[in-house]
């Protein structure tokens, strides 16, 4: 127990938590308790903050620590942030949608402001001074008029065990009084652990007596084992036992190589599912299987809009599946202690996985603990985490802790992919490029309809608009990926805007400005054009330039890129981007996220595509699935142009939204060839 605990509602971490989106998307993940401790002041005056989010590279541990330190007026070093452990932190639906700073950070700030107000009031009594004369500073409450009079938080609290509810409207610190938020923090609170190898990822969890599992996965989607012959595997040295329970086929051994060898000598008769659509059938399959048309945006009357147009332009855009390909392949370790289960899993949804485990073993959630340690990249993909249940089942059978780990090939094949999509746009516009009509129809693969809808509404001022999104069949599992379908929808829309500009001979920046009244869009576009030194798509040295804008997770973004093209290779030389995400709490962390989004988006723009035939992934190694390397990385310049008074919105995803269209426009500037299909290098 701590001297002071600040408790509050747990349902703040995701906006849709009360709308049913979570239940619809991730099953019935609901909190067991509505209140939890968010912030604690410890007996030594240090501060512990708790959040149900996980750290998978977005630097949220540092970001939250900065917010807590600033609101509570303590040094950054006095703050410890505990994340992603279901026994210790407030319930959270999952770390996705760039909500950590926007929502959990805000909750922690309110919790800390509540604590600060309580401390000030206690100090007023203790020091017998008016509250107006007191301020919190450096872990103490001191008198403004006589700084020699003061009391440290630890002394002030003493042996108490206070619990205070987060105030409805506590006095959070205004931006003008920030001492840590908004400042440059190059050094992450977990930086040293990362460069010394001490940071523990789920691949690294090795409890005493752990058995290594080699789970045998089918050769293709739709494959089922008719029979399994483990005779040879059981005789392999090091193999402890073999398991065939339903679709779970595994070899357990004392070391990883013995398990892998055992799996290799298992003889399995696979029944395959023929006739599945492959990569070449995807564009037509998307259109033919489209169902549940959903109107994203509708205004005016398209017929009237097209009748009033001087020009009409119609194009289609196709984007294949791409693989998240995080550096760390998924791994899970399960440990049964009596009727209590602990699972380490590098998932974005520790509470959702706890619920799945509880259901799988028909036991209350209180007896299940899921710990998400450091996560070696996820980008949205590590929400589903079937390995957790596999490890728990195997550990139960074996009576020992069991580790299940994906190989690289497993991670590339048995992940969830960014959906494939086909977008058709028909636009009408005047001789000056002002839009009169905008008719967009998008087909995104997969059950999860929110993916394709994100970013499918146009920000441009066309008076007559209809944007419809269909849900299409998905031969591969489609799932979350940085910005969901927004990057795909933005690619189609922004390339189309470039086509209009070219059709009437207007500069792409000017064309966009003529159709944009929202000042925040205009500002990011103009800031980007200025930073980049925009002069048009065709540069004197044979290089090309492209520019695009967008919005995602409430943040406005624009990006410009300069490329050169030699035979089948596009080289992106430099990228400028402007982001308006409101108040920037941790500018260096946000810049790092923007740079990463741009590099990741460059891969999808130029060379990434998950290829498959007959349910079989063909791109299961880095030799066949090219991702951006240091030699592909452009010089990136990011600036933040939002207002400090505007609430923080996401910074982890917007960067990927405009980059593919900017690169496509730049390739057009260099070659005169318009690219409406990704990845561009396949079509050079």
């Amino acid at each position, binding site marked *: 127990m701590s001297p002071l605990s600040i408790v509050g509602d747990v349902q703040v971490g995701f906006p849709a938590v009360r709308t049913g989106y979570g239940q619809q998307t991730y099953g019935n993940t609901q909190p067991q308790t509505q209140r939890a401790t968010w912030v604690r002041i410890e007996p030594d005056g240090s501060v512990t903050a708790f959040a149900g989010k996980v750290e998978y590279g977005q630097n949220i541990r540092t970001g939250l620590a900065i917010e807590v330190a600033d609101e509570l007026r303590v040094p950054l070093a006095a703050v410890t942030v505990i994340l992603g452990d279901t026994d210790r932190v407030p319930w959270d639906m999952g770390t996705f949608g760039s909500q950590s700073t926007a929502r959990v950070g805000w909750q922690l700030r309110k919790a800390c402001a509540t604590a600060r107000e309580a401390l000030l009031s206690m100090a007023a009594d203790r020091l017998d001074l008016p509250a107006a004369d007191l301020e919190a500073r450096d872990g103490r409450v001191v008198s403004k008029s006589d700084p020699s009079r003061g009391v440290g938080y630890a002394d002030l609290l003493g042996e108490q065990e206070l619990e205070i509810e987060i105030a409805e409207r506590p006095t959070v610190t205004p931006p003008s009084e920030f001492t840590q938020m908004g400042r440059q923090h190059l050094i992450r609170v977990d930086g040293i652990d990362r460069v010394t*190898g001490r940071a523990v990822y789920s691949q690294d969890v090795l409890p005493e007596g752990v058995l290594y599992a080699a789970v045998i996965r089918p050769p293709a989607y739709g494959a089922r084992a008719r029979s399994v012959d483990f005779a040879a595997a059981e005789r392999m040295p090091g193999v402890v036992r073999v398991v065939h329970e339903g679709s779970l086929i595994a070899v357990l051994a004392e070391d990883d190589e013995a398990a892998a060898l055992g799996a290799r000598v298992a003889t399995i008769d696979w029944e395959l599912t023929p006739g599945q659509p492959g990569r070449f059938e995807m564009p037509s399959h998307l259109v033919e299987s489209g169902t549940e048309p959903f109107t994203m945006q509708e205004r005016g009357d398209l017929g009237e809009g097209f009748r009033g147009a001087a020009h009409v332009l119609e194009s289609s855009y196709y984007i294949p599946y791409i693989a998240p390909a995080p550096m760390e392949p998924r791994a899970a370790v399960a440990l049964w202690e009596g009727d209590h289960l602990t699972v380490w899993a590098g998932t974005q949804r520790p509470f959702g996985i706890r619920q799945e485990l509880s259901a799988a073993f028909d036991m209350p959630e209180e007896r299940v603990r899921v710990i998400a340690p450091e996560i070696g990249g996820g980008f949205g993909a590590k929400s589903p985490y079937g390995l957790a249940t596999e490890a728990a089942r195997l550990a139960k059978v074996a009576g020992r802790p069991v580790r299940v780990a994906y190989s690289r090939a497993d991670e590339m094949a048995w992940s969830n992919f960014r959906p494939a999509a086909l977008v058709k746009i028909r636009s009408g516009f005047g001789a000056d490029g002002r839009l009169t009509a905008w008719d967009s129809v998008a087909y995104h693969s997969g059950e999860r309809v929110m993916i394709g809808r994100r970013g499918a509404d146009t920000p441009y001022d066309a008076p007559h608009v209809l944007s419809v999104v269909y849900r299409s069949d998905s031969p591969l599992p489609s799932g979350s990926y940085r910005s969901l379908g927004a990057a795909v929808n933005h690619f189609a829309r922004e390339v189309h805007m470039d086509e209009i500009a070219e059709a009437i001979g207007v500069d792409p920046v000017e064309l966009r400005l003529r159709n944009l009244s929202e000042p925040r869009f205009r500002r990011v576009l103009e800031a980007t054009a200025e930073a980049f030194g925009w002069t048009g798509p065709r540069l004197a040295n044979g290089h090309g330039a492209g520019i695009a804008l967008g919005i995602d997770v409430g943040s406005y973004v624009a990006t410009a890129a300069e490329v050169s093209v030699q035979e089948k290779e596009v080289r992106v030389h430099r990228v400028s981007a402007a982001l308006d995400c409101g108040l920037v709490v941790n500018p260096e962390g946000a810049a790092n996220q923007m740079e990463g989004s741009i590099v990741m988006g460059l891969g999808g723009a130029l060379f990434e595509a998950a290829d498959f035939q007959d349910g079989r992934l063909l791109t299961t190694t880095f030799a066949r699935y090219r991702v951006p390397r*240091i030699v592909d990385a452009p010089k990136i310049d990011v600036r933040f142009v939002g207002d400090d008074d505007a609430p923080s919105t996401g910074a982890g995803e917007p960067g990927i939204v405009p980059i593919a269209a900017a690169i496509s426009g730049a390739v057009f500037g260099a070659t005169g060839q318009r690219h409406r299909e990704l990845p561009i290098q396949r079509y050079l």
Partner: protein
Amino acid sequence: MLTVTVNGVPREVVRGDRNLLSFLRYDLGLTGSKYGCGEGLCGACTVLVDGQPLRACMTTTGAVAGGEVTTIEGVATGETLEDLHPVQRAFVEEQAMQCGYCIPGFVMGTIGLLNREPHPSAGQIREALAEHMCRCGTYQRIEKAVQRAAGGEA
């Protein structure tokens, strides 16, 4: 009995065909060297053997027997920035990391590069690290960190 010296400590090797990365991670518990691809294409498992970078996932204990293996755990054991190796410090100071899974490999690859070429050009840095992957895309920062560690402009 074969012996491999790991971070200065001689270690007996039971089987010379044991994968070096598995030996380091699972037999010795040195989990700072990461498994990323198992085929030498991502660099996450990079260690130094006699001062030069090697993909641990692509070799065996027998192949490095008699040699000196240095893993990330052997580079510096300090708790503070001042106690780190200059390359590690530079990665922290440039915030050249996001998820951090690839970073031990990049640090080892960089130390190997600076052993060969104390003042590498931008081209040499890119060439030396071309077979390391950072899916989070922190390459611009990594390049700056290497320059900083080499004492050049950061």
